[in-house]
């Protein structure tokens, strides 16, 4: 029998708690009735799922599905396909796609009755977890992951949601919002083509061999969707700021250009401020940082394997490419998502879909700027088209320049409106003249001060420090986290889920008030698993030294807080 652990129930409970009227009673029963129907639906989906899992010939993960759909489309019988914007795996039969999306839609519609602002987050079925994310109004992303006894399948739901959030955020950065693309092409072909190549390129990074490995419990000391900062001294910081100004003035435009500076896979500086919209930070910095670490930094360019960044997967030896995923299909649905435009009036015209996340398409040019042909190449000049992207902060389309000097990657964003196409080479020239020497000096200075991959390791601690306001995190290096016992990490995963839940409750109760929270638990293997939350800053910690007292654990946190967090967590 299927067990449901759902927010729906919670929603009902809340309603019951707050407004316990006789009048409501009847409607509750009505809802319960409706729920019953959905249960059956889920049941059948799951059963079908199971059968298809066995029978499928798809080599790649048959146990994970990811879909994007639009609630505003396909509202009439027979047009259901219209709402599907993306489905992974693409070779999945439409019937199954529709059933997954239909269930999701049903749940969303149902839960919205109780909680119009934030509909359902997750369905925990017996064998699957359905993770929901409303990326844009009525544009939903749902990820279905299988649960099984294997350790790899112990998920932290919030981490999975962060994956959805990340890919959507990146998508918007490069292609603009899904809704906007839908408005451009009512058919949906345009947005499908974009989503298909983009998400597929994104997912490839999660493949380990032929297996799709999403963030699971061992990744609990990481936080997706955050930047990792390089800690630098005052003088170096001033030097960096001076460089930032020089870049700004070199762009020689009236409009402000923006820049990010990275040292290896760590952020040194940014001029992009997060924009707050409905208490959700729209952070260009995070997106560009993520993209840089995925595709631009020296490490990404050389596609070296070992990485201490959460963004890099450990197994690049996988021969999986987007093509291999694509060519496997051959089913009817492939044409549905890919580039075929079947409308008769534009036969020769195809969508040109840049694929910013495609691997190994960036390389370092002779002048220090990175070049790519992702955005196409102008055949007359044999010069690649300059990449462009959308900034959320200014809602402006900008050119993307990337300059690299050894460990330092400088990302420069110049508004298109301020620059004619011929101005591009001029900007590059000016940058080379005015700032390349400065970059060289900064690079040397930062390299001298760099403590190596384990620079932020604190002996005896395994920690994650996360500032949800600034979208910054710092954690023990993965190599050190790997030494932790499974029990500790599982305990941490549970703890984090509790904290996630508590956080989302607080947020709903009073969005402007941040709660302090402190939890210390003793895991099976006698390790201490600790969480502290204070005013938007979160600290998670695993202390594995056995047979220590609670006092000791608390002391250890205090010390850590005093030493590394400016006493932010020293509460009492």
């Amino acid at each position, binding site marked *: 029998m299927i067990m449901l652990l759902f927010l729906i129930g919670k929603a009902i409970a809340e309603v019951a708690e707050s407004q316990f009227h006789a009048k409501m009673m009847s409607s509750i029963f009505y809802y319960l009735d409706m729920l019953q129907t959905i249960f059956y639906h889920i049941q059948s989906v799951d059963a079908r799922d199971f059968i298809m899992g066995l029978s499928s010939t798809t080599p790649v993960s048959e146990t994970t599905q990811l879909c994007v759909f639009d609630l505003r489309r396909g509202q009439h019988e027979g047009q259901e396909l219209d709402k599907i914007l993306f489905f992974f795996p693409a070779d999945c039969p439409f019937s199954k796609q529709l059933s997954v999306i239909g269930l999701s839609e049903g749940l969303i519609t149902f839960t919205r009755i109780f909680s119009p602002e934030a509909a359902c987050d997750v369905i925990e079925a017996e064998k699957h977890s359905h993770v929901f994310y409303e990326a844009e109004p009525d544009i939903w992303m749902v990820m279905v992951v299988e649960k099984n006894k294997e350790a790899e399948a112990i998920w932290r739901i919030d981490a999975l949601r962060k994956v959805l959030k990340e890919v959507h955020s990146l998508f918007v950065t490069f292609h603009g919002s899904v809704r906007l693309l839908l408005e451009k092409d009512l058919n949906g072909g345009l947005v499908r083509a974009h989503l298909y190549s983009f998400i597929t390129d994104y997912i490839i990074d999660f493949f380990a061999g032929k297996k799709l490995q999403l963030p699971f419990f061992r990744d609990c000391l990481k936080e997706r969707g955050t930047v990792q900062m390089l800690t630098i001294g*005052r003088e170096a910081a001033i030097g960096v700021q001076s460089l930032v100004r020089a870049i700004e003035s070199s762009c020689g435009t009236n409009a402000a250009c923006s820049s990010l500076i990275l040292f290896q896979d760590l952020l040194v500086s940014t*001029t*992009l401020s997060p924009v707050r919209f409905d208490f959700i930070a729209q952070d260009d910095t995070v997106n560009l940082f993520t993209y840089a670490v995925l595709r631009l930094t020296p490490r990404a360019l050389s596609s070296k394997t070992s990485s201490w960044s959460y963004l890099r997967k450990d197994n690049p030896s996988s021969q999986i490419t987007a093509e291999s995923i694509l060519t496997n299909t051959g089913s009817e649905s492939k044409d549905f998502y890919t580039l075929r435009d079947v409308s008769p009036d534009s036969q020769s015209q195809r969508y040109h879909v840049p694929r910013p996340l495609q691997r190994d398409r960036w390389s370092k040019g002779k002048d220090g700027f990175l070049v790519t042909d992702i955005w196409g190449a102008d055949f007359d000049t044999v010069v690649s088209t300059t990449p462009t992207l959308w900034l959320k902060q200014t809602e402006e389309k900008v050119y993307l320049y990337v300059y690299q000097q050894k460990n330092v990657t400088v990302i420069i964003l110049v508004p298109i409106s301020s620059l004619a196409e011929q101005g591009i080479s001029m900007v590059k020239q000016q940058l080379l003249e005015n700032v390349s020497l400065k970059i060289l000096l900064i690079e040397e200075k930062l390299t001298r001060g760099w403590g190596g991959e384990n620079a932020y390791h604190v002996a005896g601690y395994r920690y994650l420090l996360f500032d949800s306001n600034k979208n910054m995190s710092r954690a023990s290096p993965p190599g050190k986290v790997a030494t932790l016992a499974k029990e500790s990490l599982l305990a941490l995963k549970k703890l984090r889920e509790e904290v996630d839940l508590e956080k989302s409750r607080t947020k709903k109760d009073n969005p402007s008030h941040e709660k302090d929270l402190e939890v210390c638990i003793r895991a099976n293997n006698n390790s201490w698993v600790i969480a502290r939350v204070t005013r938007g800053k979160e600290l998670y910690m695993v202390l594995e030294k056995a047979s220590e007292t609670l006092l000791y654990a608390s002391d250890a946190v205090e010390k850590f807080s005093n030493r590394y967090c400016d006493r932010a967590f020293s509460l009492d």
Partner: protein
Amino acid sequence: MFGATSKSQPGVASSGSGALSHVYIQHPPLRCNTPGSRGLYYDDGNKLLLSLTSDQVLAWDIAQPTSHNALSADSIGEGPVLSIRFSLDRKVIGIQRSNHEIQFINRESRETFTQRCRSDAECIVGFFWTDCRTCDLIFIKTSGLDLYSYVPELKALRLVETKKLSVSWYVYTHESRMVLLASGMQCKTFTGFQFSFAGVVRLPRFEMGMAKYEANKKPVLAVEDVHIVTIYGRIYSLQVDRVAMLLHLYRFYRDAVVQQGSVPIYSSRIAVSVIDNVLLVHQVDAKVVILYDVYSDSRAPISAPLPLRLKGYPKANASSSRTGGKDMIHMETNEVSDHEGNIYGDAWVFLNPDLICDNVHGHLWRIHLDLEAIAASSSEVSSVLEFLQRRKLESIQARQLSLAIMRTLILERRPIPMVSRAIDVLVASYSHSIKTGSSLQGSMIRAEIGGHGENGSINRDTWSTVNNRSSTCSDPGEDLNNDLPSEVSGVDVEQSALQSQTLGNGGNLTDISGSQVSAAISSEEMYISVFALVEEEMASEPVYLLAIITEYFRSAASEKVRVNPNLNVMTVQLLACSERYAELGLFIVNKIVEPSKEVALQLLESGRQHCETRKLGMDMLRQLSLHHDYVLMLVQDGYYLEALRYARKNKVNTIRPSLFLEAAFASNDSQHLAAVLRFFSDFLPGFKNTSDHSTYCHYLNEMNSSYIAA
């Protein structure tokens, strides 16, 4: 004889004063003309201009040119006078009556005695008083030097030491305490002695180079062709080479004399002045002056040759009204037009370091630099600023000019690298001034050949240096300690020179302004006079200003100079106003902006619109352990329970309980209110007896009852 370096050559008078100039003389001059004057003498040891009448000597103290009346008049009796010098305590007058005898008159007792040469074969070339420890008086004779000490009780001189060598002529300046003795056929072999307080230093003998006319004809070096000047505390000798038309610079080290380049000359008659360490080479025939700043190795002139200007001249068209300068008709009515305006007239004698004496009319002019004109003449901003920052005499003006240049640069939105270089100059200068300022207290005065040392070996002229007098009177530095003075940093030397100057001039000085010694611009001034001023005009465009401020931070950090706290606040303000929150975060987290209460409060203020910024302010308060403010802010933000916890931990008991109670009451949460009440009941002795307690207990009861009722 006019001092030792007097010279008089016929010059060609012609007009040449234009509107543009870099140096000027200020009208009116010090008028020292007395009826029946037999001539003017300059006593550079005492800064006295002496005018001789038939039996009197009148003295003007040029260090205090407040009055045109003579400072003193002493009767000296009849008789020829070859040279005359007051002793350094001004108690005794020494008068060289002939080549063989010098008469001494005690000004108080009127006692006199005469010192004669021992043999008729030698004759006295000159004499000067010295503040050297071992002797008081030096006679320069054709056969060498006699060092005497003056014994008032005996009314006689006691011979201390004799230095045998042949002397053709000599050059001496009290400023350098150095005498150069010329000898040889061409008079180009020199021996130097420095009579500093610590003792007598003999310089190695050296030769000055001279180009030849022809193979057989060897020119003879004349006394007027050699000058001793002191620039940035270094002692140089300048030699005019008439054949090569070059002015050679020789620099004196303790154990060596090194030629350091030459500059071309364009006149057969050359005079040199040093004003505020700027070397002026007067091309007398051409009536122009060329300025050199010999601080660096470069011997390029500061600016183009320009005439000397007469400033404050009563007539507007001074130059045109001047007629033939050669007709020196003494008519009072004509005086102004005839000779006061006669720039580079024949009667001009240039006195070390910056004076011009009109020998005929008894006028004394002081040469001034027109810093404003010099600053305006060059577009090389950073070098102009460097030049200005090295100025000591009119340091206030130099400072004002520097500030004005800086402001203009910013307001004109010059390229950032250019402004950055300018900032570097100012900050480096300030940093040096701090370092050397502290070194004045110690004995860090590094000497070159004892050019300065204890007790004012460099006794530069004081007319304007009164402005610059340092108010600190510290222990005198050690003299001649450094064997390799060439490595001495210029600013150090400068400072020490000034220091010794102060000492040397002793009571002669009045501290007029009590202002700073150097033109250096402190962080405070940089903020007040540059950033605060330009900010008002650039408020609409903070990006550029931010870039400049960043450059200033960088410069200050590299020189380890503290930034003015107000600038930190302003930076935060600017960043917040332009909504550059990401950068603001970086400025705070990386401590580019130094944490302070002011900055924290500004962050809180700016954070009204942006909660992240407000948090930065809160964090800063906490990090600075400003517990009281931190707790207050927590309460203000509605985190009263957290505030209580924090207050208890950090023992903050300066905040009224009612604040917390009000906040808890406002939140309409009876549990919280109860918690706060309980907190104070438990931890604040006597709280239960206060009105707060009863009031809020009452409120709590009401809340509970209404809750139940509902």
